[in-house]
Every structure is written in C-alpha cells, then in structure tokens.
C-alpha cells in the first residue's frame, strides 16, 4: 500500500514538470495566493495584490483619446476584484465523477441572425474546439483532475450566429450542467452576452478567440482573454503604415458586423490622432461577393494604402477585385486572412499582403513543436491560431482548476492574480490589470507562398512614447515632450 502511495507521489512529481504546466503548482506565488483565498468566511475578501498599471493597453501618448485634455477618470488601470462570498462555497462530495469544463463556440453551420445569411465562423470555432479538446485529452492522460484523480469532461455547445443562443447556453453551463469554468467564444456580440451571464452566475470565462478590444473593457472580474486583441494589432499596423511607411491616405474596407466595426476602430482613431485621418471607410455585407461599389469609392478617395477587416473569404475577394481594377495599393488585413482559405482564393494576389497577427507561429519553441506534432497526430490537420489559442486558454483553466480546487471563485482568483505570463504555445501570455493578453503581437507577411511573422523590433517599426504615469496625475505629456 505504501509502495503504491510512493509511486503515485513520484508520478505526481514527474507530471508537475511536464508541459503544459497544468499540474500542482508549488511556486511561492501560487502557494501564497492559495493561502490567502482558502479557509475564508463568506464575508471575507482576500487581499489579492490587485494589479495596477500606469498606462492603458500600452497606448502611446500621441494616440490616447482626447490627448490634449486631462480626463476626469481613467478606467481599467486598477484590476477589478471579486468581493462576493463564492470562495466559501464548499466543494462537491465524492459523488462527483468528472470535472466539467465548458466550451462555447461557433462549431455548427446555421443561419446568422447578425447577417441574415449563412453563418461564417464555424471554420474558426472548430479549430478552437480541437485545441481545447487536445488540452483536455492530454490532461486526462496525465490523470485528469489531480486532487481526485477523476477526468476532466469537456461540455461542448454551439453559439454560431444566433445571438440569443449564447446566453441560454451559458445559463445551461452555469446551472443545468454546471461547469467549473468556460472557454469561449469568437463572435464579439456572443462574447459580450456570454460574459454578462458569467458575471451574474459567477463562473469564469476565458476567451481565446474574440479580438474585439471592447470585450475586456467591461469591468467584469469574471473574464480574461489569452489572445492579443485588435487594439494591439491595430496599433502595430498603424505604426507600420504611418510611422514607418509614411502613408498619408489610408482607406478602410470592412465587414458590416461587429468584428469589422470594432476591429478598425483603433486604426481609425490612431490615424486621426497622428494627423492622417482615414480617407474613407466602406462597409460591405458579410457573405457578399461583389465589392464594386466599395472599390469604386476607394479609388475615388485616392488612397495610398488599404486596410481590410473581415473574414478570409471576403478579404481575398476584395483583394482580387482591387487588383483586377488595377489598384496596386499595399493591402493590410486582420489576422483572419492568415489562412489557407485566403491564400487559395487570392492566389498570386496574396503576395506582399500584410496582416496583424496575435502571435508568431514561426517561433522556435519545443513546446510549440510538440503541440503541432500532437495536434496533427490527433486531427490530421495543422493547428491554426484559433486552435493554438484555444489550447492555451484551456490549459490556463486546467492549471487554475487543478490548483484552486472545485470552486469557481478560486479558479478565477488564480488566473486573475497570476503575475507571471502563462507559457503558452502561442508565446508568453501576460494578463494586464484588465485581464487582457498584453503579449507581443506581430505582422504576418505573405511572401513566396508562405506567411512569415515579424516583430516590431525586427521590422524596426517606430512607436510613440508610452507614458509611465497615469493621465490623471501626469502633465499633458506628448511624444514631443519626451
């Protein structure tokens, strides 16, 4: 009997060293957080060393909103805390046979309520699901939920296109088939709906696929995001287009959905604040194939660079039609264009296209190599950005669950208070005070039949001055005042 116990302990020690590091975490920080959140009464609120930052989202002073005015108040610099009684909830009894983690994402084709047409995000959601599945399967191969040696169970639901269904599905995962934490989703409107339900029902949601900047700008302590958002990608694109390349008249063509509308917002605002206001912004209906009107307007606006924000298919069709009409302007896109679908449709026109991208898949990292290998072995296909971020997001949830125990508030606490970046296959994932991924983003460039990924430093892209003091207490600092 003792021998078995020793063997089990040895196995546990070994698994703690494995990647991803989802097993028992003996780091001083995690142990200290556990000491603070365990054994609390329902009215006690732990001191969790809330993160406090001096600058929101690494925004340079020359693109801050209303830069000439000292605002009355800045939000998101001090981390939100959860002050409710959830930490005192008892764990379930021995009757529990599995530890359920929810997955919500667009995985089934349906009618899109947002567009009135066919849904369009299931190609992304299925990959995200595969990444999450691989993480769960790996965790179960290593013993599952380590404290009870019971498996993790992935509860999978679809939210594609139907805005209302997301709320109902999260209700199900909160009350009917209770999940300890949830991963999801991709559509921006659905994500907002989901976290509102998660907030009220007090279950943590990790987002790995929605790059809408406003997703995190909601002051909800029950959510986080493990993918670089469109604000960060937009800043890098603007710095490249304006500060490095000196384009003066940028034109935008985008999807008429929330992804397109909010995706270009920081590009528009930043360009205007840098004195190069976007010359024209044209929207098209998602799922469309004819962009003559938008392209005609872009031509008339005499733009010297074009930014597209939307899905891969439309991005490629727009590009082809631009080139067909003789428009040779540089073409910039969102990360959704970095896909086989885009390059297959765009063909030779894809050459030279530049996209914002939330990570660097060419990074030399044995964990990334191993993930890729195992993903291909499991699904007979390459992992894409949604798979990789879904894998990372799910592993963060598994790490938190394994260490916090079966308590939703404590699972939240461990992720929220983690001060060191999560070592993801997509790179280091440091969470900001707003619980957003503040890791590096990149530019992807399609050259000679493949995408290559480039950092700001590699391309020597200048950036504005990032102030080290919050706006309310500092002077009216600008780049020039540096």
């Amino acid at each position, binding site marked *: 009997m003792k021998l078995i116990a020793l063997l089990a302990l040895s196995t546990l020690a070994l698994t703690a060293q494995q990647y991803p590091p989802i097993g028992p975490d003996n780091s001083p920080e995690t142990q200290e957080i556990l000491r603070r959140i365990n054994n609390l009464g329902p009215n006690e609120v732990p001191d969790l060393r809330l993160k406090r930052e001096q600058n929101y989202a690494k925004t340079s002073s020359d693109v801050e909103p*209303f830069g000439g005015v000292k605002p009355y108040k800045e939000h998101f610099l001090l981390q939100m805390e959860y002050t409710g009684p959830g930490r005192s909830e008892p764990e379930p009894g021995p009757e529990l046979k599995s530890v359920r983690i929810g997955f919500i994402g667009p995985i089934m084709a349906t009618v899109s309520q947002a567009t009135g047409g066919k849904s369009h995000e299931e190609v992304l959601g299925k990959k995200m699901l595969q990444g999450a599945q691989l993480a769960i399967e790996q965790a179960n191969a290593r013993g599952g939920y380590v404290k009870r040696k019971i498996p993790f169970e992935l509860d999978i639901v679809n939210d594609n296109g139907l805005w*209302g269904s997301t709320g109902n599905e999260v209700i199900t995962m909160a009350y009917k088939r209770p999940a300890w934490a949830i991963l999801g989703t991709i559509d921006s409107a659905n994500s907002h*709906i989901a976290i509102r339900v998660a907030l009220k029902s007090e279950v943590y949601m990790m987002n790995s696929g929605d790059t809408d900047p406003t997703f995190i700008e909601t002051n909800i302590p029950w959510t986080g995001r493990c993918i670089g958002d469109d604000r960060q990608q937009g800043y890098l694109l603007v710095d490249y287009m304006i500060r490095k390349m000196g384009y003066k008249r940028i034109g935008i063509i985008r999807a008429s959905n929330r992804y397109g509308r909010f995706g270009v917002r920081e590009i528009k605002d930043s360009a205007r604040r840098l004195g190069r206001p976007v010359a024209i912004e044209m929207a098209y209906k998602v799922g469309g194939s004819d962009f003559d009107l938008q392209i005609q307007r872009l031509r008339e606006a005499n733009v010297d660079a074009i930014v597209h924000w939307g899905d891969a298919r439309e991005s490629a069709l727009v590009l082809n039609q631009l080139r067909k009409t003789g428009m040779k302007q540089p073409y910039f896109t969102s990360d959704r264009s970095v896909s086989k679908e885009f390059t297959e449709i765009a063909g030779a026109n894809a050459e030279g296209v530049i996209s914002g991208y939330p990570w660097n898949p060419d990074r030399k990292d044995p964990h990334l190599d191993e993930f890729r290998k195992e993903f291909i072995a499991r699904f007979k296909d390459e992992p894409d950005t949604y798979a990789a971020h879904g894998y990372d997001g799910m592993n963060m949830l598994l790490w938190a669950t394994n260490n916090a125990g079966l308590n939703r508030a404590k699972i939240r606490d461990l992720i929220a208070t983690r001060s060191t970046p999560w070592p993801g296959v997509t790179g280091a994932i440091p969470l900001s005070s707003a619980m957003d991924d503040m890791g590096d983003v990149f530019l992807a460039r399609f050259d000679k039949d493949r995408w290559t990924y480039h950092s700001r430093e590699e391309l020597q892209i200048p950036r504005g001055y990032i102030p080290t003091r919050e706006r309310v207490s500092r002077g009216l600092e600008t780049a020039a005042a540096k």
Partner: protein
Amino acid sequence: MKQKSIAAFLLTAALGFGQTPPAANPKLPFVYTKWKQFTKADGLPNEHVFAVKSDGPRLWVGTEGGLALIDKKSGKVTKVWTEADGLPWRAISGIDINHKTGEVWLALFGGGLARFSGGRFDHWHQMNSGIVNDVAYGVAVENDNIWVATTAGASRLNTVSGEWTIYTEKNAPMEEIWNYGVDYRDGKIHLAVWGSGVLEFDVASSRWKDYLDPDGEMEIDLYRDDGIVHVITTGAKYIDKALWVSSYFGVCRYDGRNWRAYYNMDSGLPSDFNNNLAARSGNEAWFATDKGVGAIMDAASNTWVTYTRDPKSNAGKAVVSRDKTVLETIEMGLNLPNNFIVSMDVDGNDVFVGTSKGLAWGIGEGYYAGVKDRPKQVAEIRGGAK
C-alpha cells in the same frame, strides 16, 4: 438687513455657486440603524438575492434558487416557491407588481418571463411566445404592458391583446442590444443597456431618446458632468423628473438639464462597481455596489451614507460623508448580511437590500428626507431589529 443680504451674497459668491460652506455642525441625513436579516436559516430558498420588490405588506424576494414571500407584519418568510412548486425557472432576476391586478411578474434569468397570479405561474419563453430571449434581467409593468429587459433586446407584452413587440437595433436606438434593466414611471420606460447607455421610451408618443457617454471612449471619463457616466449601464430609475443611473464605472444623475457623475473618489459611493440601484426621490438614491450600499441622501449637497458590515463579526457601520469628507461614523449591530450587493428596493420609509448572502431590511423609523440639524450619533448603537 440689506447689508446682511449683501454680505451673504458676497460670501456665497466667494465660496462659489453651488458649494456648501463649511459648517461646524453640518446638517446630517437620516441613518438606518435598525436592520433585519434573512438567510436560508430564516427560510429563504437561496441566499443569492437577485431581486427584491416591496408590495405593501408583502416583500417578494427573487433568488438564484427560488422565490420567497415575506410577510412584513410578522417579519417572517411565509412562502417559498421552487421549480418543484411550479416556479418555471429557479433564477429570478427581476420582479414587478401590477397594482391594478395584483399580478406578480418575474424576469427569469435564463427562463424568460413568468406571471404569478391566483397561486398559479404562467410562463412565456422563446419556444412559446414572442419574447426575444430567455435570459431576462429585468421586468417592468407599464399600464397593460409588461416590459422585459433581455440579453438580446427588450420585449413588450400587451397583456390585453397578447401581442409581443420586440425592440432591438432594428427599431430602437440600441447601439447594442444587451438590455440590463428596465423601469417604468411617469409615462416613460427607461432601459439600461450594456453598451448603449440609457434609452428612454415615451409611452404617449412612442418616441425614443438615448443617453450616451459624450466622450465615446471606454477607458476614460473625460469630464465628470458631461453626460452619462459610461455606456455600460446596469440600472436606471426615473423619479421626480430626475434620472438615476448605475454602472460598473460609477453612477450618475440627470435632472433634465444637468448631469452629475459620482465616483468612489469624489463621493460616499463605496465602489464604482454598481450592480443596481433604487431611487426614493430625485434627491435620494441607493446603489448596490460590490463593497456595500451607497445611499446618496441629499443630492443637492452630495451627502451620502455608506453601509457596510464587518467581515469577521456581526457588526456593521454607517459612514456619513459629504463629498469625500467623513462627517459621522456610526457603529451598529449587523446591518447587511454581506457587502456584495445585488439588488435593491425602497418603499415608504424602509429599504430592502439583496446581497450575495441574504437579504437586509432597513427599518426607517423616524426617517426624514434630505438633511437637517440633528446631534451626531456618536454613541454606538448596538443590536438591530433581529
């Protein structure tokens, strides 16, 4: 006499218009020192109190796990309904009363809308009615209509014709459709919409008006009093032609001409994270924060009373403040069962506070509106009504 008037005018001018001159004995608001608590031990089906509604001698309590009725006279939970008793869904996020019929209307968080009448529950949901979504956050009775704030728009049920009307971005100025709260008073519906500020629907004209954050930015409030405090709102109450608004980014008040925002940093609001609110008048409102109750008792002088409980003992306290100056601290027996406040109602002289760990009933014996001269309650007041 004339000289005195001139001197008074000059003094006022020197101090600045609208500012209260410092006083040795400032006028003080009423402070609730008698509280009664209700938990599962007292018969609540669940302690996470999502909604509370006072109805004369009755108090309806909507929780994450059922509905409870408290008889105010006896001070006891007299009846509880769960799904086993016919309640259509366990989580009740909003309650309103049709005073004409006596019907109790329930917003069900994930279950649509329910009516409790004659001992029977009737249920409207996405599969049997025109309600736009089952994730309902609030309900309000407007004449013969029932309005429901849902996560995918607002729905209106005409109880006479049975007709449903849906309001979304297609027929209302909703930049986003994520409705959070709904309120009806004085001919106006107010919707608190996550991402779309507050929308006002004039019943007589069927016209909409929107209140949005003028700076349009999520990460800052450019000027304190330029408009609604943030576009992500959680509640709106209209009373005495004043609009009170709660949000996760502070709270604010609009008197039809001027806005005023209140933050933790410049008022007695205990936290900027506000789940809901209740308004007693255009001068007094109560806010449900994640760090206690913040009650602005006199908007004219920015005088607040903040109620919190001690986390480790059965004691509570009230702090009276003007702007950020503490005027009075009153130690008392247990007031709130928990400092995470979710729901709120005021009725007559009393207040009702739904928390994450039970319900509190503040008994307003001797309540007075606004502020007045009174001795400071420096002596400790121990022992609530329980």
